């Protein structure tokens, strides 16, 4: 390239509605593919994929893509994300399992004591005791989650800046 290419926005790029003199027969719109039924292989996709929520942890699993030419920062970010997501998933799976088991026990104990119909107020007793029992665990989880989230954010920012610089270099280098 012997000249700098300036990005231009052409009117033809905008899909403006057009008026015709005669009625046009439009070919059937090609239906663009919109999703995958199964988690893809990380190396074969060009962007991250997110899946339906996991029934135990209610969190959505990610498939983090990568290339052969991923930089050290993006590799670090990808591995950190995978680790944090795994940690989150295990915490919430265990936590939710504990919640449902304790709820079952509570209802069973009440049924054995003779009260078949458990009102909302009585369930409140269970909800409160569950929250109080898990108070320290929740506090520790909160702190860890905030710190990990912030680390991921700063690393993602650095990767983003790196990508922008590379793109700018590529454009001026040609």
């Amino acid at each position, binding site marked *: 390239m012997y000249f700098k290419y300036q990005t231009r926005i052409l009117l033809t790029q905008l899909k403006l509605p057009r008026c015709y003199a005669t009625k046009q027969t439009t070919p*059937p*719109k090609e*239906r*663009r*593919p*919109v*999703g*995958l*039924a*199964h*988690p*893809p*292989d990380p190396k*074969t*996709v*060009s*962007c*991250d*994929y*997110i*899946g*339906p*929520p*996991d*029934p*135990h942890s*209610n*969190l*959505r*699993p*990610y*498939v983090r893509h990568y290339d052969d030419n991923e930089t050290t920062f993006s590799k670090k970010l990808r591995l950190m994300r995978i680790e944090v997501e795994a940690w*989150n*998933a295990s915490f*919430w799976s265990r*936590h*939710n399992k504990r*919640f449902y088991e304790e709820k079952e026990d509570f209802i069973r104990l009440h049924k054995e004591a003779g009260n078949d119909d458990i009102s*909302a*107020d009585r*369930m*409140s007793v269970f*909800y*409160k005791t*569950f*929250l*109080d029992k*898990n108070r320290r665990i*929740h*506090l520790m*989880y*909160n702190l860890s*989650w*905030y710190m990990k*989230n912030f680390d*991921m*954010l700063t690393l*993602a*920012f650095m990767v*983003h800046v790196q990508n922008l610089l590379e793109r700018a270099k590529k454009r001026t280098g040609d």
Partner: protein
Amino acid sequence: MMRVLVKRELGLITQLLAPVNVQSTRYTTKSTSSCDATSSGHSILPATQLKDICMPVSKANVIVPASNVTLPDYNTSWLPSPCDDTGKTISQYKKLSKFRLTSLVVITTMGGYAMAPAAFDPSSFAMCTLGTGLISAAANAINQYHEVPFDSQMSRTKNRLLVTGQVTPLKAVTFAAVSASTGLCMLYFGVNGLTAALGAGNLFLYTSIYTPMKRISIVNTWIGSVVGAIPPLMGWAGCAGTLDAGAMILAGVLFAWQFPHFNALSWNLRPDYSRAGYRMMAVTNPSLCRRTALRYSLAIVGLSAMAPVLDVTNYWFALETLPLNAYFAYLAYKFYKKSDSKSSRSLFRFSLLHLPALMLLFLANKKNWFFNKSVEEETKDSNVMVLKPSKTATSLGNVLPVAVAEGPR
């Protein structure tokens, strides 16, 4: 993890073999016009429903669904993580900023501005409302960034953008940073320093105190009510330049309103809140929850009666708001006596009507609408030239080297 994947695959396979779409019976006629590839009665989602689905980039290894299968959506299939559909950016920003909540906040700010005993300046009014809206949008985006795993646990919030991966956390935080800085600059340079300080304080209170406190103690409800009471103070300060007793009436009404509103909302979500680890009155102390809802609804009655005494409104206001506030207090009393999903829902729904109606009544019964005359009389009386800084809203004339004519305010 593998077991979960296999289970999900089995589910999807059975879905492929015998596609059942509950919504298809309603949309069969519409869908045939958009795509003529359908042969069977089982339909594909029409174009109006496709707007919630993102298109992946072309290099991806994708499976094109067969014609007799429902198109995948965010709950049953794997979709690209940041949704790069350019047609959805506006709706994404609206969801990030919780647009409806932000507009309610902006309405209370406009009410505060309109109620202040000072002249109306269109430019500072516009800057004040826009600035407050931007700060509120930033606060909501930061809140969503912090609460991703908790939002996924609750059915009310599990379709948020960051939870479904349509927006990356970096984009959400960048949006929040740009929005907050723009909003604060608008308030500082376009309105006055007090409003900017209140805005910055409110942002800090919401993101750094209220959001963590939601999981630490029930005091978070009181802090959240303060967060809700500050926007009318911002509007008042934006117009009048100072805060006085009248401003506190408006802020007090909004502070008190938050309790019946939020307690009624959270009553039906107790199991979700408990499992996600949120400490709300409805979960930890239901009787306190009922009592505060009733107590603060009665406080609204008292505050509205005091508004004419402090020269905020005329005396008709007390008469006009009596039926409105009395009905609100009656619904809170019914919630107090028998708290179930029906009474909580009716209290919550009425609270959404009650606030705009109360704001309208405030505006309709404002004490003085014109302020120029009284200031002119003052300056005529004094024989001494008093150089006093303009107490009311400053404009961009402060910053730009432009001569701005300041009329009597």
